[in-house]
């Protein structure tokens, strides 16, 4: 009996995989676009559960905000500004059933093969039978020797900085490029100056008061997730997207004119530039120090290496700060939070203003 119960996590995995497959199918064939958005939100929640059970909390912390929060928000705004129903006639019924069946069969076969091939084992959850590359990474990064490790007890962060610093940098720069593109498209647009009126604008008073109470708490939790990125799962990006809830709540529950009391677009851009400068600084600070004192050093270096003997201290007064990781997390938090703030502010510019500007351009 207790053997049966120990299978529970697998049952949960199976249920969530099945539910997400059905939700994806419904999202594809649904003609009402808002319902399709909701189906995709269901799918995202279940993916989050699957990732969680496979023990990748860092990915869950990114996936939930992006897929449950930001994607529906942007899609809902887009649907609201355009049309609610899909113009195309939709997929024929027989075709869609064939697609669903093939996807389900493929999922089942792939899952069966994964189990049979012992990539997932039923012995321990998750598999203790770690593979060679994983073993090597864990041995080098979590080994408390400053010549190899980046002195962070959190495996993902430890790997990211000294081994995957450069590609993480380019991954983040994709998002920054997207925001630069949005700013370039909206270069003539600005939020109109209007006085915020408590009684007319925004949603109900209960929503407003509760948002007032909860906003500082959300921000402080986000700061905690960001600043403890080198100790617990989380980090700059995760903290930033968590903090971005407050921006969306400010804009949707109060109004954009209330949000501009806190930050205008120009101030958000300025803070984001400060965050970007912090990221660049954390990448190059060791190299700069090495250049100044005339010793060899790398960019993206954190702790001393065999041929580059300088590095930032990994602790101050007995508290682990893991060298440049704290600086990196702080600036990434600022940059991501302000990037999302810019996106939400740009999306909430009233449509009349946009039309006016477009008319002016055409003439």
């Amino acid at each position, binding site marked *: 009996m207790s053997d049966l119960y120990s299978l529970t996590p697998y049952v949960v995995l199976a249920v969530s995989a099945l539910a997400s497959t059905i939700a994806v199918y419904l999202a594809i064939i649904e003609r009402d676009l808002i319902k399709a958005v909701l189906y995709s939100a269901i799918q995202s929640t279940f993916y989050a559960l699957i990732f969680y059970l496979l023990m990748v909390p860092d990915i869950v912390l990114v996936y939930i905000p992006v897929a449950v929060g930001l994607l529906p928000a942007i899609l809902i705004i887009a649907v609201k500004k355009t049309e609610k129903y899909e113009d195309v006639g939709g997929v024929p019924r027989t075709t869609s059933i064939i697609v669903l069946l093939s996807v389900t069969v493929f999922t089942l076969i792939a899952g069966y093969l994964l189990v049979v091939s012992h990539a997932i084992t039923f012995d321990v959850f998750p598999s203790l039978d770690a593979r060679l590359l994983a073993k090597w990474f864990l041995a080098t990064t979590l080994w408390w020797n400053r010549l190899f490790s980046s002195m962070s007890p959190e495996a993902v962060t430890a790997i990211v900085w000294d081994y995957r610093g450069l590609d993480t940098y380019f991954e983040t720069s994709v998002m920054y490029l997207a925001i630069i593109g949005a700013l370039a498209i909206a270069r003539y647009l600005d939020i109109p100056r209007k006085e915020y009126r408590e009684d007319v604008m925004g*949603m*109900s008073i*209960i*929503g407003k008061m*509760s*948002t007032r109470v*909860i906003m500082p*708490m959300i921000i402080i*939790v986000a700061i905690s997730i960001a600043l403890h990125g080198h100790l*617990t799962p989380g980090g700059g990006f995760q903290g930033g997207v968590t903090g971005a809830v407050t921006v969306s709540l400010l804009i949707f529950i109060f109004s954009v004119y209330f949000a501009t009391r806190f930050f205008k677009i120009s101030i958000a851009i300025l803070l984001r530039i400060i965050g970007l400068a912090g990221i660049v600084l954390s990448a190059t600070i060791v190299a700069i120090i090495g250049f100044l004192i005339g010793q060899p050093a790398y960019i993206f270096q954190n702790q001393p290496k065999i041929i580059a003997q300088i590095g930032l201290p990994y602790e101050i007064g007995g508290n682990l700060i893991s060298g440049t990781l704290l600086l990196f997390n702080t600036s990434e938090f600022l940059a991501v939070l302000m990037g999302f703030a810019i996106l939400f502010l740009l999306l909430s510019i009233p449509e009349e203003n946009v039309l006016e500007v477009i008319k002016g351009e055409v003439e």
Partner: protein
Amino acid sequence: MNLLNPVLTIIGYVLVGIGAFCQVVAGIGMNRFPNFFVRLHAATICAIGGSFVPIIGCSLIALSIEEFGVIRFFLAGAGFVTAVFLLILAPVGSHLLAKAAYFSKAAVLYPKAVDLLEEDVERGEIRE
């Protein structure tokens, strides 16, 4: 502390059990109730009895496990903060949804005994 641990564990398990019961009942209610405005009450059972209570229970259980070391305070603290957020945010979500559904006529309050809000809207007292 050692004396307190079993008590915390038992209270925690009781709370988790209450949560399990409430979830099943709320799920049944969610499917049995006829329309949106009645389902709101099942959703409340899910949010408070089904989620707030077991999260608190898990925090108490976590506090009593000494094998986890210092990390158990992290679990307990994060659990408490999650529960408080749930307690403040879940009713607001229900309220906003109910208000939007009522005034946009997306869901209709059909089997109704009395609707004083509609009467006030018709009298012109409330403009929404």
